[in-house]
């Protein structure tokens, strides 16, 4: 119940609060304040020989769920008039830059993951989980190919993957007061596995073929880098329209061309 000590990084529209271990614990924007924390976890793939291994087609994590891997993170804060960045170093294969731009009411999380270590001979599926104090009562919403939103209900299926849905544009949860939206920059799997939490799967490295026809393991030895955008809003105003326009902007960014400057460019 006591508020953690730590750092606040903010601009005119958004305030982010970090505890002394370097983790995000509260976000304030659009007149809303919510306890929001974020973690990187991974699911261990089932071993070869078990009933069904994880692979290119199948995600079959062990029932007990994700492992927690980071307890304290190094934090570097870069402050400036246009953009404030918080560089977080979780471990030697997981890092992230949290970014807020002046005049933009959303938070950008640029994650960098990999190469995923498999020295323990276990494939891993890396996810990030945003936990909040929003009581969404098992209901969350995912987009359908960036168009209409579909209501989803948690725990229709018992297993973790059974609660996963395709997230091509955004995943949302809300209660009668607050709404938390995550927009992603590529098609990913995502879910809401706990009350007030949103989860997106970011990277996978699996060591066994899942016998669904591919004939080789999804042994992705590379690094993956991408962005998740978070918008915290009150639940009462019509934010869905605004989110849809922002989603278009994120998926159709401006295209830059460089050249030498020359006379009478105008």
């Amino acid at each position, binding site marked *: 119940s006591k508020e953690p000590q730590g750092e606040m990084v903010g601009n005119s529209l958004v305030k982010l609060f*970090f505890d002394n271990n370097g983790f995000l614990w509260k976000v304030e924007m659009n007149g809303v304040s919510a306890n929001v924390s974020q973690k990187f976890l991974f699911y261990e793939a089932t071993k070869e020989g078990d009933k069904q291994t994880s692979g290119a087609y199948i995600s079959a994590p062990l029932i007990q769920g994700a492992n927690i891997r980071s307890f304290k993170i190094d934090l570097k804060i870069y402050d400036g008039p246009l953009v404030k960045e918080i560089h977080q170093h979780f471990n030697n294969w997981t890092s992230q830059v949290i970014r807020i731009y002046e005049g933009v009411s959303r938070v950008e999380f640029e994650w960098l993951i990999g190469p995923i270590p498999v020295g323990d001979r276990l494939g891993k599926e890396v996810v990030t989980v945003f936990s909040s104090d929003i009581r969404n009562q098992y209901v969350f919403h995912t987009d359908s190919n960036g168009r209409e939103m579909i209501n989803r209900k948690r725990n229709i299926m018992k297993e973790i993957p059974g609660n996963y849905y395709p997230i091509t544009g955004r995943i949302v949860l809300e209660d009668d007061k607050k709404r938390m939206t995550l927009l992603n920059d590529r098609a990913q799997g995502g879910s809401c596995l706990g009350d007030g939490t949103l989860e997106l799967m970011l990277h996978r490295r699996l060591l066994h073929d899942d016998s669904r026809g591919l004939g080789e393991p999804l042994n992705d030895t590379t690094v993956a880098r991408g962005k998740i955008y978070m918008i915290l809003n009150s639940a009462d105003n019509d934010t869905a329209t605004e989110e849809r326009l922002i989603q278009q902007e994120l998926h159709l960014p401006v295209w830059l*061309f*460089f050249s030498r400057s020359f006379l009478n460019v105008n």
Partner: protein
Amino acid sequence: MNNLNKLKQSLGIMQHHDAITGTCKQHVVNDYTRILSSALTLAEHTAKMALQKLTSLKTGQFVSCLQLNISICEFTQNRPNNLLVTVYNPLTRATKQYVRIPVPRGYYMVKDFKGNAVKSQLVPLPEELIALKYLRPNLTQYDLVFEAEVEKLGHYHIKSTNGDFESQNVSVDSEMKEL
């Protein structure tokens, strides 16, 4: 149009769920990447030809860095001076977006097409990204950030300067605090 047809064809191929989900052998994924990147390069050439129609430059003098998302741009990595950034907005409405251009450490002055100075800020890249030498073999360890306001097509001038210009027109360094 020939080049654009190539891009259309490759996007047609990308409709296959294997291209989207990666449910295919590694060499097939590599081939999807090859198809898409060669089509993008061709389409890029068409875009440059269009820009050439608007300017007195030749197509070869326009560069579009397709790896800006990992802060790689050969054109700007060597202290860009007298640089023109042409900004194309694919949306059907005017937009204001922050752009990030990989640059070496230094001082820069950004001006919009009316010649007004635009606020800019120099932000260091994350150490973890710089450490990926095999991914980013180039020099730049900073991004120059400024907000571009574009209707359909806009342009900004970037000049490298030596810091003792009028301070509010020169890029601001980010202040670092380590916890």
